């Protein structure tokens, strides 16, 4: 499965989702499909996308949050899997695109290339709903199922180690950050109207 095709498959569903991506290929490829104000690209701080997603999900339980992570990033913050499992926000889906390499720095193989199993790690951390997929249709189905699962879901998606030719996009980091924050503010549910008197 190509990661770009996987992103394209779920792109329509992302319209109704608050999305946090990691740096590099995932951010550039999602932007190539079309940036939206509900997408936040964490362009550095490897490992913290899942933690940032947890902070969003706990703070705004009425919103659906998707973290689009990678094997290199989550391997830097495996403890995050245990924290996610501990608080298990039902409105969070944690997708890990596993291409078994650190693609953006030259494709050096990560430990998932030598047998470390992220789905098994997620299950062992205590995440109840874990899907491991390698085909596009299965990925699309798992992502859709996560929306109605009503529980924290992790999807480990094996993808090819191929990415875009360039990683820098024309969206400045801070523009993205402030636009995203403003968008989330606007998504606040309006205060309930007083009962209309007849």
């Amino acid at each position, binding site marked *: 499965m190509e990661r770009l095709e996987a992103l394209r498959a779920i792109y329509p569903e992302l319209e109704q989702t608050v999305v946090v991506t990691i740096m590099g290929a995932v951010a550039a490829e999602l932007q190539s499909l079309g940036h939206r104000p509900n997408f936040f690209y964490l362009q550095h*701080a490897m490992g913290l996308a899942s933690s940032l997603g*947890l902070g969003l999900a706990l703070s705004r339980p009425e919103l659906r949050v998707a973290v689009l992570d990678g094997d290199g990033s989550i391997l830097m913050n495996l403890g995050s899997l245990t924290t996610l499992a501990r608080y298990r926000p039902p409105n969070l889906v944690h997708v890990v695109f596993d291409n078994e390499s650190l693609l953006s720095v030259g494709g050096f193989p990560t430990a998932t290339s030598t047998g470390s199993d992220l789905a098994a790690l997620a299950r062992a951390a205590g995440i109840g709903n874990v899907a491991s997929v390698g085909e596009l249709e299965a990925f699309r189905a798992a992502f859709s199922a996560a929306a109605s699962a009503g529980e924290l879901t992790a999807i480990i998606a094996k993808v090819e180690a191929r990415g875009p030719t360039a990683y820098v996009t024309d969206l400045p980091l801070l523009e993205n950050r402030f636009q995203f924050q403003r968008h989330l503010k606007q998504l606040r549910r309006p205060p309930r109207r007083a009962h209309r008197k007849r």
Partner: protein
Amino acid sequence: MDAVRLATGARIPENGHCLSSNRAVPVSVEHSKLIYEALKQGGVRLVSALPETWLVHLIRMAEDDPEMTLVRLAKEEEGIGISAGAHLAGVRSALLMQNHGFLASVNGIVSLAQLYRIPLLMLISYRGGFGERDPWQTEGGGVTEELLRALRIPTERLDRPSDVGRRIRQAQTLAESALRPVALLLDRDLMWEE
């Protein structure tokens, strides 16, 4: 949720590993309460923490408070991400950590909070200074303030109870106007009673 154990031995190691006797750790409940109330008054509704002896009362107060979301971390750097998410989502947060946890969070502070202009209110228990008996705390104690300076993080000590409320309020105000991390060093004189 699991509670932090509060007992320690006669030699009073401050690392919290010795849990055999019933003697309470001499961490100030009163001053912890001052800090906690200042956080609440400042609108903090999410606290991330990694247990540390000086922080036990603060963590328990957060745990017992139905208005507060307490996130217990595996490693302090996670808290930088969680606070960033909370901020972008419109929720005020604070981080409770030991200075060694601050040392373990540096890339998150630089490459998330500073790069993306996220206000962080970091309450850091300042171990390894004068009066420290645990040898393993002393190296970290020696570099904490220098590192905060190197990172250009505005820092004040909390060492007197009369300053607690005002300093926390001022720290939060600066973090939110500058959109940057700020640090309050929880001092032995404030936290430890013996």
